[in-house]
């Protein structure tokens, strides 16, 4: 009884094994595709972030440009 329970648990938990569910480094071709990025244009996203910070009267923190003066 104990052995069969142990074996059942092992089979069930093997489904959660990181090795079985993890995408290996050499399998990341599709993740690396540019169309998988959240924003297609990185430079445009930085600019949008900057404008958002100015509009919301935030003072920088984005790191992409300087403070929230809107001068750059």
């Amino acid at each position, binding site marked *: 009884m104990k052995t069969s329970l142990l074996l059942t648990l092992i089979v069930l938990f093997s489904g959660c094994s990181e090795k079985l569910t993890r995408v290996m480094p050499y*399998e990341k071709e599709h993740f690396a595709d540019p169309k998988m990025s959240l924003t297609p244009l990185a430079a445009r996203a930085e600019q949008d972030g900057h404008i958002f910070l100015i509009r919301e009267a935030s003072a920088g923190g984005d790191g992409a440009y300087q403070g929230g003066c809107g001068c750059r």
Partner: protein
Amino acid sequence: MKTLLLFITLGLHLYAGVSQGDKAPEFTLQTLDGKKSYTMQNFQGEVVLLNLWASWCKGCKKEMPEFFALQKSYTKGFSLVTISVDDKAAKSQNFLKSVEKKTGIKTPFITLHDAKKEVAKAYGVAAMPSSYLIDKKGIIRAVIVGSLNHEEIEALKKDINTLLK
């Protein structure tokens, strides 16, 4: 207790990649154009730097021109064997063409295609790119995870020269 130890051992075995001192796993792969087939046996008696790369990997883009120069600096006894894990060989071919254009050097090493990722699995590649320095007897002497810059390639040359003696 014994059962627990057995399962821990099996679990750890799942994560095992090759390491220094191991025999380099055997493989049979075709070149990118599919015209020729190579195995590890083809490189017996040579010092081999086995590099696993992909056209989508940023580190590979950085180190590939260095590899062109590295193979160019050896005429005998050393073979750089690169294995692409791209799904399609055409992507790898285009990538190499762009490096050829950049360096002005025709691809000086053998490039094999591992579309099924069998070699990557056998070597337990932990990150892309990964390189393995293999001695004349087929023993892995160094496992290099990540891309190599010019200085690191120069240091690697010293290891290669030691193994060539």
